[in-house]
């Protein structure tokens, strides 16, 4: 087992409804998707997500697993400092919270990490050589 950030093996999108933030955490498409999803189900629990966000999320965190789409759904109550229109946060809709959950430290089997290889990441200037770029 190795301790790595969730970002090494998953991606996530967040959304909002009132003062609730919701996260979809997914195993990326690929040959090892089932194994990665199994790790997510084991490691990314509601309790750990709640602790991870500290006083950012004041209410309950509920988890809904959906193995049919290799995803975990989290609903976090009282997560946006009063809700979009009232919150003083710059990110009043919690658009960045999907990224924040990826900082969570999880245990992943070494063999799986070896099979997955390094986390795919963009170049520093991703469109530097794109044909459409305006110079």
């Amino acid at each position: 087992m190795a301790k790595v950030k969730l970002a090494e093996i998953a991606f996530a999108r967040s959304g909002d409804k009132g003062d609730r933030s919701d996260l979809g955490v997914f195993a990326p498409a690929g040959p090892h998707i089932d194994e990665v999803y199994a790790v997510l189900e084991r490691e990314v629990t509601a309790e750990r997500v709640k602790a991870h966000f500290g006083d950012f999320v004041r209410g309950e965190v509920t988890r809904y697993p959906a193995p049919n789409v290799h995803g975990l759904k989290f609903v976090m109550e009282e997560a946006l400092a009063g809700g979009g229109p009232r919150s003083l946060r710059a990110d009043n809709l919690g658009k960045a919270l999907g990224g924040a959950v990826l900082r969570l430290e999880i245990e992943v089997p070494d063999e799986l990490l070896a099979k997955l290889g390094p986390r795919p990441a963009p170049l520093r200037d991703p469109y530097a050589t794109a044909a459409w770029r305006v110079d």
Partner: protein
Amino acid sequence: MIQRPEGAVRIAGGQGFYGDAPGPIADLLTEEPDFVVLEALAELTLAILNKDRARDETLGYTRDLPLYLLQLLPTVLEGKVKVITNAGGINPRAAAQMVAKAAQRFGLSGFTVATVVGDDVLGRPELLPEDFPSAEALAFANAYLGARPVVDALEQGADLVITGRVADAALFLAPLVHEHGWAWDDWDKLASGMLVGHLLECSGQSTGGNNAGRWWEVPEPWRFGFPLADVQPDGTATIFKPEVAGGRVDYDTVRQQLFYEVHDPSAYLTPDVVVDMTTLTLDDRGDDRVVVTGVTGKPATDTYKLVGAVAEGYAAELSLAFAWPDAEAKARAAADIARKRIEVAGLALDDWQVELFGVNALHGPAVDLDEVAGQSEVVLRMAWRCAERDVCEQVARHIVPLGLSAPPPGFAPAGRGRPKSSSLLRIATALVDKRRVDEGVRVSVEKI
């Protein structure tokens, strides 16, 4: 053009919010959709529109609607596409009048416009639940209607249907019910159609926009294709994008939208059906097409969701940028000094928020501060909430003098001009009896 399966209805998501890009409509039309749906209302858009209507009673709809109609009307007039939108906002009839006037000015005629009203319950205070804010306090209060009145409008021959607060996904279900003749208790089919609506309602978010996966690999990201769906009579749906446009439709992009702003995926509550997403299968065909099958549904509830908002004071903010060395320490010091000066000035704040961009402004307690120490630059953002507008605006005057008369050296204002206050709203939600709301729902049809 992508070939469509036998008997499929082709629908397109042409708008995801008030202020979205109307440009992608032209690309959508190359795929010859039967219906284009323009989804214009986020949770709070009605508050903005209510302010418009208070100032001018011919307003209260999303004012970018004409930009979309300019592109769509020629094809509507050829009888090749119908348009459904909730851009009517708080005043669908005013939107229809705007369309009628514009059509007259340009000499256009030969199409039918329908409006759906009755979602606005502010004028029917007897419908507000007891623990809900009073009608006087509310900036707006609207029930999320379902697909039925839109189906009524289509059955009366409408080419353009303008509604207020109809649930986003229900705008897409309506043409499917109308074309495929689905029964209002055929729960699996209604759920399939509602799910398609959910996948299409946020425009580019299902075609690779806001993609947390390999976003840098999405082709032609400057010319995003908006989503389309071919929906077969049995509810099987193929999600795709215009062949001529950029973007990406695959297992990763579609799943992200599937879960977006949904709570329990096994019971996604909508006005017309309770959708179960945990039974469905997404089949990635590998050519920017994903086929959705196996969606199941349960009977709809007896209630509509009601959303309202009440005023909750004012807010303003000011940002200052600090550079190496010790950028984070300087930013934290400046925030503490500013807070003290505001206190000494006797200005009452209801709330005070300090954020450090470059440190943890966006991720908060999820960030390990040791991991991000020693940044090159940090932007300090201070935001505050006050009951009174003028107090809110005075606060900044006690922060700006820090530039010469406080220890942390060398900061630059991040942003220009003096901070202006904006009014805040608190959202209230409740459930209301469907039957009673429906008594006030009206569909009117006008030939132009």
